[in-house]
C-alpha cells in the first residue's frame, strides 16, 4: 500500500503548477477561497462533491449529495468570473419535489496583486445576483468576503497562508457559505510542484486535502471536510488567451 501511494505521488509530479480551484469552483484552497486570481484567459471546467450535511440548498442538503458543476474564467489578471450549476444527486426534478438545480454567478476582484512585500488582497461575491436586482430569489450559496494570501519560500518548500473574513453585506436570510473568520495554509515543494497539501478552517469546519495535477490540463483534489467526511473535485483547465 505505501508503495502504491508513493507511485501515485510520483505520477502527480509530472506537470508544473497545482490547480488553484476549490470545491466552490473559484480559486481557493479546499473549500475556502484564496486571494489569488489566475492570469487572463485561464478557464476551468469542473465538478465537485459536497457531502450531505455540508451544504444547504432548498433545505435538502442533509438528504442529498451536492454536485456543483462550474465554469470559471479569469479576466484582465484581476477578475474571476464563475457560473455554477449545483445538482443534488438522486433528487428528481418534478412538480412534486419542486426541486431544480441551483444556478449562481460569482465574481472576485483582486484589488492588490501579490508582490515581494505585499500579500494579494481580493474581494469575493458569490451568488449575489439577487442583490443586483437581476435574478431569482434563491441565494443559497451567498457569500461576500475579503481575503488575503501570500506565498513564502523556505528552501525547497512553498508555504501559502491565506486568511479572510466573510460578512453577508447583502443582509439576506439564507445561510451563507462562509460566515466570519476563515484561514488556511497550502504547502507544496519544488521537487514535486504538482502536489500540495492543504489545511484550513473555512469558518464552519476544519478541513484537510491533497491537491494534484494529473495531466497537463487536468487537476484534482481529495480531502476530508470536518476532518472526517470525504469530498473532492476534478477540474479541466485551458487558456483562451493563447
Amino acid at each position, binding site marked *: 500500500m505505501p508503495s502504491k501511494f508513493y507511485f501515485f505521488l510520483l505520477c502527480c509530479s509530472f506537470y508544473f503548477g497545482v490547480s488553484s480551484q476549490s470545491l466552490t469552483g473559484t480559486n481557493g484552497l479546499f473549500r475556502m477561497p484564496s486571494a489569488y486570481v489566475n492570469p487572463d484567459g485561464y478557464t476551468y471546467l469542473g465538478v465537485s462533491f459536497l457531502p450531505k450535511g455540508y451544504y444547504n440548498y432548498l433545505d435538502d442538503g442533509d438528504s442529498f449529495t451536492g454536485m456543483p458543476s462550474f465554469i470559471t474564467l479569469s*479576466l*484582465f489578471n484581476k477578475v474571476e*468570473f464563475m457560473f455554477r450549476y449545483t445538482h443534488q444527486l438522486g433528487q428528481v426534478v418534478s412538480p412534486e419535489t419542486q426541486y431544480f438545480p441551483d444556478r449562481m454567478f460569482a465574481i472576485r476582484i483582486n484589488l492588490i496583486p501579490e508582490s515581494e512585500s505585499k500579500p494579494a488582497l481580493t474581494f469575493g461575491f458569490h451568488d449575489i*445576483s439577487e442583490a443586483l436586482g437581476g*435574478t431569482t430569489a434563491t441565494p443559497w450559496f451567498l457569500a461576500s468576503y475579503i481575503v488575503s494570501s501570500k506565498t513564502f519560500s523556505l528552501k525547497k518548500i512553498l508555504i501559502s497562508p491565506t486568511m479572510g473574513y466573510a460578512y453577508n453585506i447583502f443582509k439576506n436570510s439564507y445561510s451563507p457559505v462562509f460566515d466570519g473568520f476563515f484561514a488556511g495554509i497550502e504547502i507544496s515543494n519544488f521537487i514535486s510542484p504538482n502536489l500540495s497539501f492543504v489545511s484550513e478552517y473555512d469558518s464552519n469546519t476544519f478541513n484537510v486535502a491533497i491537491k494534484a495535477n494529473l495531466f497537463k490540463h487536468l487537476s484534482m483534489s481529495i480531502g476530508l471536510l470536518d476532518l472526517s467526511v470525504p469530498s473532492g473535485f476534478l477540474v479541466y483547465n485551458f487558456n483562451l488567451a493563447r
Partner: protein
Amino acid sequence: MIRSISAIFVFIFLFPSHAQEKSFTSALALQGFENVRSIEVDSDLYITYENNLFRFEAKGLAVIFNWLSGTYLNDIEFIHLLIRSQDIPMVVVSVHTTDLTAFRDGFINSQDFITKLSFSFNVDSFDSYFTASNATNSSYFKLDIPVGLELDYALGDFNDGLMTRFYLNPRVSSVLGRGIDFEFKFQNIIQNDLPGRAISYPSILRVSQNFRFNNGRFLNLSLGYLPQQRYGVHTRFRNYLVNERFYIELLFGVTRFGYLDQNLKPVSNRNSDAIWQTSFNYRWNKFDTDINFTYGVFYSGDLGYKLQLTRQFNEVYFNLFYARTDVLSAGSFGSTEEGIIGFSLSVPFGQSKFLKPRRLRVRTEDNFNLLYRYSGFSFSGIDIMESTSIFTDIREFYPEVLRKGLIRHLE
C-alpha cells in the same frame, strides 16, 4: 554560385515592375484570396486582398506574410497590405522589406517581426491607390453555403430540467457588388423538446448594402425578412473615433412581424414598429475588450439600457451583460425583477480553413453561439438580431487583434 548571382542580376534589372505586380496578384489569387490588386508606387508595394479562405483574419494574414517572406521583392522598401471585407477596405498593415528579409533569414523571430509591423484602422489614403485597377479573383456573384449548428434551450421547468431545440441551418450568401450582399437562411429543426409551436422555415431572406465612408464611418442597410421574424428595414451607422478605441452607433429600423412559412408563404401583421438604439463603445485594446452601453428600444419594444462587457480571445467571445428596461423580468416562484443579467459565449465552429471560394462552395459556419439569460422567461433587454453584415466580424480587423493573432499563427 556565379550562375546564381547572374540569375539574381538578370531578375533585378530585367524584370519589369508591372510584371512583378501581376505576379503578386496572380500568386495570391491562386492561393484562394479574393479581390486581389497590387500596385507599385516608387519603392512602395501596395497589395489589397480579401480573405474568405481562412475563418480567422489573422491566420490569412500570417499565411500572406509567410508567402511574402519567401518571395523575391525587387527594389521594394515598404509593403502595405490592405485587407478587405465584401470588397470594402478594413485595415492596413505595413512592413519594411528589410524586416521581412530578416524574418525570412532567421535574424529575428516572429515575435520581433510582429513588433516591426505597423497597423492602421484608418485606410482612407491607401484605398485610393487601387481605384483604377481591376480585381483578380473577384468575390462577386459566388455562392457560399455555410452550414451551422444552433441551440435553443430552457432550464427550470419542474417537468423537464433541460429542454433543447437544435437546428442545423444552411445559409446561402453572395456578394453582388462592393458592399452589397444577399442572404438566405433556412432554419432547420433537427431535435426539439421545447414546448410551443416550432417549424422549419426560411428565417432570413434579405439584401444589404454596406458602406465605409471616410474617417472610420460605417453604414449598413438591410431590407427583407430579417431574424426574429421581423420584416422590414434595418439601418446601423457606426462612427469610429480614435481608430477602433471608441465608437458611437445608431440603429434605426422599421419592421413588422413577418416571415415566410415552410411553404414560402408570407405571414405578417399590419402593425409596423420603429426601433432605435444608440450605443457607446470603448475598446480596451490591452485585453481586446469592449465596454458597451446601449440605450433604446429592444426586441420586445421595451425601452431601457444594457451594459455589456465583451472579452475577445482571438475567435472566442465572452460577453457579460446587465439590462434594465421597462419590462419586468419574470423570476422563479412567481417573482418579478427589474433587471436581467446573463452571459453569452461565441466559439469557433468547424473548419479553420475552407475550400477555395469558387462559384459554389459549401463550408461550416464560423461560430457556435450560446446565450444564457438568468431569467429565462424574461422579455427584457433582448438584443435585436441582425443578419451578417460588415459589422459581424469587424473586430477581427482591429489592429491589436491582428497583432495578437499573428503571434499565434505566424511560423
